[in-house]
């Protein structure tokens, strides 16, 4: 995974709440067996609307999505994270994220940042008046800054460290193989197994 330390880019205001993962990428786009090429499906239905924010030239090159509350609800599809990343997004800001989406995003290096709804709205207003506003997301100092503002955000130390080092979670867990081995030795015998097949 690519290290995430600091990112500077422009924002895209997505003034909708409850953006579910079916909106981020509809199911018909999930048939690919690779991790790339999902940008075509990103917000597929909404992109048919010429007024949709991603169709506006001013916001075409944004890398920081600023969305309404409860972003990423619904299906656990990690394709939603890949679609955002494949399209070019590095950061999503919202006042609330669905648990599974947030987990997926932080595993994959798409930084999801929680700010108060009032700050999200202030950022929307700024982007509306000046789409070229430069926004800096600094994971080291845990701040989002633009104009004269510097807003702190919370992220647990472990996740921050993992993102800043670009570490593979599986590699980290495999270092604990001894603990897993000894846990397995003590598992109860009546716990079900899928093999051999019984029917």
């Amino acid at each position, binding site marked *: 995974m690519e290290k995430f330390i600091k990112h500077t880019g422009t924002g895209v205001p997505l003034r909708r709440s409850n953006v579910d993962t079916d*909106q981020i990428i509809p199911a018909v786009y*999930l048939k690919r067996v690779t991790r790339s090429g999902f940008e075509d499906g990103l917000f597929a239905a909404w992109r048919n609307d010429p007024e949709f924010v991603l169709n506006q030239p001013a916001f075409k090159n944004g890398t920081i999505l600023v969305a309404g509350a409860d972003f990423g609800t619904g299906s656990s599809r990690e394709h939603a994270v890949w679609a955002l990343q494949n399209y070019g997004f590095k950061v999503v800001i919202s006042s609330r994220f669905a648990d599974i989406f947030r987990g997926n995003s932080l595993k994959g290096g798409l930084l999801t940042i929680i700010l108060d709804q009032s700050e999200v709205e202030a950022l929307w207003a700024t982007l509306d008046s000046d789409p070229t506003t430069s926004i800096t997301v600094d994971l080291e100092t845990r701040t989002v800054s633009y104009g004269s503002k510097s807003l702190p955000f919370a992220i647990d130390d472990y996740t921050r460290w993992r993102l800043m080092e670009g570490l593979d979670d599986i590699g980290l867990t495999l270092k604990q193989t001894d603990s897993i081995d000894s846990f397995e030795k003590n598992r109860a015998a009546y716990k079900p197994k899928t093999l051999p097949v019984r029917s």
Partner: protein
Amino acid sequence: MTIWAEKKEHYIVGKTLAEKIWAEHVVRQADGEPDLIYIDLHLIHEVTSPQAFDGLRLAGRPVRRPDLTIATEDHNVPTIDIDKPIADPVSKLQVDTLRANCAEFGVRIHSLGDKDQGVVHVVGPQLGITQPGMTIVCGDSHTSTHGAFGALGFGIGTSEVEHVLATQTLPLQRPKTMAINVEGSLKPGVTSKDIILAIIAKIGTGGGQGYVIEYRGSAIRALSMESRMTVCNMSIEAGARAGLIAPDETTFDYIKGKPHAPEDFDAAVAYWKTLFTDSDAKFDVEVNLNADELEPFVTWGTNPGQGLPLNAVVPNPADFADTEQRTAAERALVYMGLEAGTPLKKIAIDTVFLGSCTNGRIEDLRAAADILKGKKIASSLRMLVVPGSARVRLEAEAEGLDKVFLAAGAEWRNAGCSMCLGMNPDQLAVGERSASTSNRNFEGRQGKGGRTHLVSPLVAAATALRGTLSSPADL
């Protein structure tokens, strides 16, 4: 002294069911790190696994516990002509990829044509492989279904699928706990689907974020296993990754005799009986709901929290005090093509979908068939009946339910997720309106431009007969 104080606290403050299961699965705990949790069962399907298997191959890693892993084909498989090759080449590649991955890594798979093929959350319970006290994951958010057995089941993304395949564990932050107490008894015609739709409308689609919900109370205890699964299934629609119900005799009876029921059943039951929330345990949040007051529930909008009793009218966005809710309601009414003030029962339906991991089990089919028996569905609509698994389909056919559905004018399909997510050819057309026993009414969920009203199997059947949203009492 410190040790004593910790022990004392441990004894004084009891544990919730979720905390007990969590504690029993901690492989490793370290300050400032997530807990490493052991996973007892990993369910796999074709859509969220190919990239995970690819990751294993690239790193040269095996599947650590193929004997705790099981796969089936459900999300994008067709529900007709299943004896022929899958027509859509992209879907076919995905299903073929799953089959090849399972063969390569030694994972058990139930493919199209097998009696244990079907929606992954129907298959686990019907095999008896979903049992109390387990941790169960799947690359599908409706893994919360398995919580009905007093198991901690939750959906994961593909990176986590790969993690579980490689290590049989997951690093996880401990969730908070929420109790939802449903006391009283349901009126005739009101089902567990109405309970969960009412809960989501009450706490909102984000209400359960960060929590494991435990459903409690007399109305929950009175439910059958399959009805309990419907409740836990939609925990995710309330924002909670997992929902639980403490196991009891209903649970034990359901598992007994299933193919993978424990051989030493008594030893298992003795353990299962320890799986309850201690009387002195504290939940972080408690919510109460009166079952006596519940009516058949239906959604009118484009998220599962936008629901109302069936005898209500389409709400006026102006009546929402909260700006965010008002904007969402305005947008939803435009998308749904509805006008404020219209009685929900006047809404005409084009397609009725009976199926999914929420309501595609044998009891759901029986309940709908009971209403349809000897009658014809309205000529203005089509009805798709999609059993949750091939086994459910066979069971229904043995009971003659297929004949009831066919005689009523409905289509009798093969098992799969089907129109719940419109990934296979079973989709709504632009502007088409469904009454669906599934779990999500998102924009375009059942097909681009399609409009979804979530309902119980009883409301689905009554609606099929009348052509407009209806409850059995309207017949």
